[in-house]
């Protein structure tokens, strides 16, 4: 990746040394700050973290007890989000990647809409969700409403990853299939999608990560209620909202907030590792 082709002998002036110093200082400082952020959260949260923390209900507005209902609510929100985002995302990505000739004009419009969607701030997704899903569709504060809002939000990411996964498949597969008179349906479902599956999995995992990290879009859609949700139409508190609420609205909630943040970071790290693992396995398999 890097191109260190500067010869060692080239004359060095004081701006050269300045730049050398500045880049290294920056890189070291950023690394230190990163460690500071992570370690201070680990330091504050690790003491609280235990199996019991994961498996019990919060008590005393979250100052004591665990985060079990938040984990369940988060999981249910993610399930709703994926159940909607996956078919929409896969269908759209297939159209954009594989029918770019026959549906060129339509594809351009869809792409424009997706570019716009990718730029929408998450709080605006929250506003939209609270009007459209909660009010107009009558879902109220519910896991369903929150999951649907997140589905809208992760669509651009999911579609981009899926489209790239499909486009990275060699054209020779499509040519070979076309030359055999195979239908588009067979070509896609029997040849291209199985071959592109690892790439699609990476996109899926990254989208789950994005949804897991989101807070602002959930405040007015899935709500704050911190007990176990009875159904998808019940309100439920996501893990990220729990962190927000404990640190902002509950004096003395910092330690449990840190522990929850640690759980969230750990989940994201696992997802990240999973994505890296899938793409590594995939690239070695291709070789």
């Amino acid at each position, binding site marked *: *990746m*890097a*191109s*260190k*082709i*500067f*010869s060692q002998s080239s004359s060095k*002036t004081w*701006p*050269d040394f*300045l*730049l*050398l110093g500045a*880049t290294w200082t*920056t*890189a070291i400082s*950023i690394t230190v*700050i*990163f460690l500071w*952020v992570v370690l*201070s*959260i680990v330091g504050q949260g690790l003491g609280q973290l235990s199996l019991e923390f994961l498996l019990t209900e919060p008590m005393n507005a979250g100052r004591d007890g665990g985060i079990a209902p938040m984990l369940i609510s988060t999981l249910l929100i993610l399930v709703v989000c994926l159940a909607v985002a996956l078919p*929409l995302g896969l*269908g*759209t990505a297939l*159209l*954009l990647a594989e029918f770019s000739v*026959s*549906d060129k004009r339509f594809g351009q419009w*869809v792409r424009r*809409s*997706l*570019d*716009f*969607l990718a*730029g929408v*701030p998450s*709080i*605006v*997704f929250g*506003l*939209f969700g609270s*009007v459209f899903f909660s009010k107009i569709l009558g879902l109220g504060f519910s896991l369903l409403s929150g999951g649907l809002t997140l589905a*809208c939000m992760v*669509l651009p990411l999911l*579609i981009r990853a899926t489209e790239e996964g499909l486009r990275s498949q060699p054209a020779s597969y499509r040519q070979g299939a076309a030359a055999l008179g*195979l*239908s*588009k*349906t067979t070509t896609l479902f029997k040849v291209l999608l199985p071959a592109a599956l690892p790439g699609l999995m990476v996109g899926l995992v990254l989208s789950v990560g994005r949804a897991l*990290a989101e807070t602002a879009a959930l405040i*007015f859609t899935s709500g704050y209620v911190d007990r176990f949700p009875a159904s998808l139409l019940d309100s439920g508190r996501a893990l*990220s*909202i729990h962190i*927000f609420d404990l*640190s*902002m609205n509950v004096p003395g909630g*910092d330690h449990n*907030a840190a522990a929850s943040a640690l759980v969230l970071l750990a989940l994201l790290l696992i997802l*990240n590792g999973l994505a890296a693992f899938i793409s590594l396995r995939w690239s070695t398999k291709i070789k």
Partner: protein
Amino acid sequence: MSSLASLRQAKRNDWCLINSLRILASVTALVGVLITVFVLKEALPALQSIGMLRFFGDDAWYPLEGQFNLVPILLGTVLTALGGVAIATPLGLLSALFCQFYAPNILASSYQRLLELLAGIPSVVYGFWGLVVLVPKINQLHPPGQSLLAGILILSLMILPTVALLSTASLGDVPKAYLQGADALSLSRWTTLTRLVIPTARSGLITAIILATGRALGETMAVLMVCGNVVQIPNSVFDPVRSLAANIALEMAYATTDHRSVLFISGLVLLALVGLLVMMASVLGSEEREKTRGI
């Protein structure tokens, strides 16, 4: 003929496939339209009954008493975002130079991994860290701690990976032949980088900054948690401020009628600001493509 029957079946499948894909893609495309339409629709009553001028002319932001001066909130948004960008841009650029030209290969790729991890930390976690670590430190320096400065610092940390990763990519696109040519002339690194590499990658770098600015403007949680949320025009960086996004998150829960509608107007303003930036970035991107095609 089973062969002809299978052919008809294949045709039917293809017809079903393409049309279901079209329906799914239409729904996806519709989401963007729906968001615009509904935010606009909810914002409309206030636009009609209050009018744009009062957002600038009212005495203050007392939404419950019908006073809707948005100026301090707009200022708070712009100041935190620009402050964050002002810090993140040089650091991000230096990080990118580090990755592309200074670090040994292993270090460069692990530093890039670190930036990716930094980008993956949820904003609520940044906000929490800012609240329990950064704000007390600023409080020692100058109370109250929750302040414009805290917002600027947290935002700069959050958008730094965006600037750094996008810049690294666009510096990597600078043709290697340019560098070899510069080396053959034994130009100093300083001259090569400032006169050759950075100008060549200019539009990519500007795009990175624009996208990071968009992210900073729209950021909600971290700013909400560290900025103190007092509606005022700050006299110094140690004064608390409130941003548009934070304002929505704080007041949406109890806002009714005109007040609620004004919050949707702030959402619309955010949407417009970010949309403008995305458009600028895409225009820059297409200009860049034109340029390289010309070569």
